[in-house]
């Protein structure tokens, strides 16, 4: 029997060899290899635990109030996302990249009672992938967002849809963090020890990267990105996460105590190995847009579809602590924390009010010879691409 290792052996060794080559190790996949090979004849995968339903039942009372504020964004009769009613006069927040809305193209919402209403796009916060919609006319049941600190890891969270039982239940896996965008400059950053000065230190520059091509050097200290001040390393990630590959960012840097600027065209982050992609999509469908978020919580409710994004996340106490924003991997779903959602809604509403103000034919700001109709419009939000790969730029305030 010593020589009896057979052909399966080789197979597994190959797999291990792959792991080694990619230095991306890990949970060795065994069953899926077989599944690929034998199709339906694979040893049957065990069913998802039938008792998952008990978790959803246990969280149903906590979900009851939030459910009244959930709407579905509908395109061609299909739900493409969920959303949360944010005010009694009909503002609704949802996941921007899934809904394909633009200022000229209203979307349809299905309300809790089943009624279909039109909603117009108010604005988009690209760095969060959140869109604010408005239903004009009517009275609605707004969500009560949790106040205070973010929900900590270890708390149960239910993703609430339009049915009595929540869509899925999970645990908060990781507290708030930034998920870098697909866009990269090609630098490695560190915080500066001396916090008084602020900025992010470039420890190393990828010699093949775009930053190097733009003349960025190791040892430079980034003090601003697109004229926004950088206090620490994470601020750079936040700024970059607002952009997509191909965008140009202007870096303001200190080099030997001199102020220099560079224009860096962002490149696309190298794709993870096919092995990693395959593992992450085993048993799951993922959101197209699942990176480039300024602030997300991570939880482990993965029995969710991309079209369930936009759903509110509630705790056992029934507090709405966030809104699901991406099915991100086999083990992870991202949600924007409630405090961030509240801030984004306020900013987008303020921007809307500012536009309305600017549009008002107020003689005091117009010269006599310039008719109001020729006054350039305040910039509208960029339309959202239905392809969802590109996200509209934000409207910083």
């Amino acid at each position, binding site marked *: *029997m010593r*020589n*009896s*290792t*057979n*052909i*399966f052996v*080789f*197979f*597994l060794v190959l797999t*291990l060899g792959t*792991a*080694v080559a990619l230095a*991306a*190790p*890990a*949970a*060795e*996949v*065994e*069953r*899926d290899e*077989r599944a690929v*090979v*034998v*199709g339906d004849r694979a*040893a049957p*995968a*065990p*069913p*998802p*635990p039938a*008792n998952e339903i008990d978790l959803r039942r*246990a*969280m149903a009372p906590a979900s009851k109030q939030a459910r009244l504020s959930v709407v579905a964004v509908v395109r061609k009769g299909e739900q493409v996302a969920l959303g949360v009613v944010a005010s009694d006069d009909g503002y609704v927040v949802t996941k921007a990249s899934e809904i394909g809305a633009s200022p000229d193209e209203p979307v349809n919402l299905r309300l809790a009672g089943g009624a279909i209403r039109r909603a117009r796009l108010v604005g988009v916060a690209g760095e969060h992938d959140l869109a604010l919609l408005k239903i004009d006319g009517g009275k609605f049941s707004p969500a009560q967002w949790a106040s205070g*600190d973010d929900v*900590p*890891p270890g708390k*149960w969270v239910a993703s609430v849809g339009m049915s009595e039982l929540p869509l899925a239940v999970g*645990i908060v*896996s*990781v*507290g708030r*963090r*930034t998920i870098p965008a697909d866009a990269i400059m090609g630098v490695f950053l560190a915080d500066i020890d001396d916090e008084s000065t602020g900025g992010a230190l470039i420890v190393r520059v990828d010699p093949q990267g775009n930053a190097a091509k733009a003349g960025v050097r190791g040892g430079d200290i980034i003090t601003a990105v697109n004229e926004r001040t950088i206090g620490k390393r994470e601020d750079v990630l936040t700024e970059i996460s607002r952009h997509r590959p191909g965008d140009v960012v202007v870096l303001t840097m200190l080099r030997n105590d001199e102020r220099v600027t560079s224009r860096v065209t962002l490149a696309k982050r190298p794709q*993870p190995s096919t*092995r*990693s992609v395959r*593992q*992450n999509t*085993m*048993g799951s469908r993922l959101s197209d847009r699942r990176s480039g978020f300024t602030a997300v919580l*991570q939880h*482990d409710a*993965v*029995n969710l579809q991309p079209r369930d994004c936009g759903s509110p996340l509630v705790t*056992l106490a029934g507090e709405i602590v966030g809104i699901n924003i991406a099915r991100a991997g*086999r*083990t*992870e779903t991202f949600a924007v924390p409630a405090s961030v959602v509240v801030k984004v809604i306020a900013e987008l509403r303020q921007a809307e009010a500012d536009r309305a103000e600017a549009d008002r034919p107020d003689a005091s700001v117009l010269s006599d010879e310039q008719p109001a109709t020729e006054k350039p419009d305040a910039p509208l939000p960029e339309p959202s691409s239905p392809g969802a790969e590109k996200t509209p730029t934000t409207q910083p305030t």
Partner: protein
Amino acid sequence: MRIFVFSLLLTVSSVTPSARAEPISRRPVDAAALQQVEDRLIELLPGWRAATVGVILSRGGAGTGVIIDETGLVLTAGHVSGEPGQTAEVILPDGRRLRGKALGRNGVEDAGMVRILNPDGEKFPFVNRGNSAMLKTGQWVAALGHPGGWNRDRPAVLRMGRVIRQNIFIQTDAVLVGGDSGGPLFDLDGNLVGIHSRIGTSIADNRHVPIDRFTASWDRLAKGEDWNPANQPLAWARNQPWFGVNGSDDPAGYRVQMVDDSGPASLAGIQPGDVIVAFAGKPIGREGTSHRLTTLIGTCRIGDIVEVELLRDGSDTLRIPVKLGRRPAS
């Protein structure tokens, strides 16, 4: 918010003794039971995270590990620690990268051990070993690890699940992915009950090495022994059709180098040196023939009789019927 959490923690510690008497992890799931699980998790998570580390080996693998004593002994998966003696790097939660060494490996059970070299005699935070034999189906367990690899912007990632079944591995619905290998599975007493090993297609198919398998061979692992190399059949393979040859790619097809004396190929008269050119009516091709043959075998069932077409010593093409079998247990 903070005061609220604090008072809950106080409550937890005061109810702990009674909770131990009737393990919360096996109570029916209702809101009160979930609240107890949550309180316990929030209490235990900081200690778990402090002992959960990234592990990178000089000759390949990378994954997660967990510190099991204050001197810096780390448990991980056998396929992460790899060949004993190689240099390891252990990444602590604070980002420090410490030098280590791979100790023993049990390839089949996928148990591995790594030691942080620790020349300064630092005392590390660690977790306690539990007893996996005590695990019950349906019991709550918590998984930590570094899915996708260690990431300085993200602490060890918590996931919850329940025990679905146990055989060689513990199977749970605590979801794992590449990078988690070697990470810890805990019960809600806070003890280490398993080490992440592998996943299947279903999100409910996540497998962990029972901690008892480490305990049973602790001294061998600590001494750096390497046994049951990973290229021996695993339990799951016993349910797959078995042909019983080993070999390599050949310009003409798949060249048989070894046959298992008791295997289906041998019983049918296939010999070392034969070059297989077709299996079950399908050509093997000339490139990637090992993988192709494996694939073709995998499309069959145990007990199927298939025709194998092969070349032997320049003779004519031979066509040999082979009845596929079941792999022996040892």
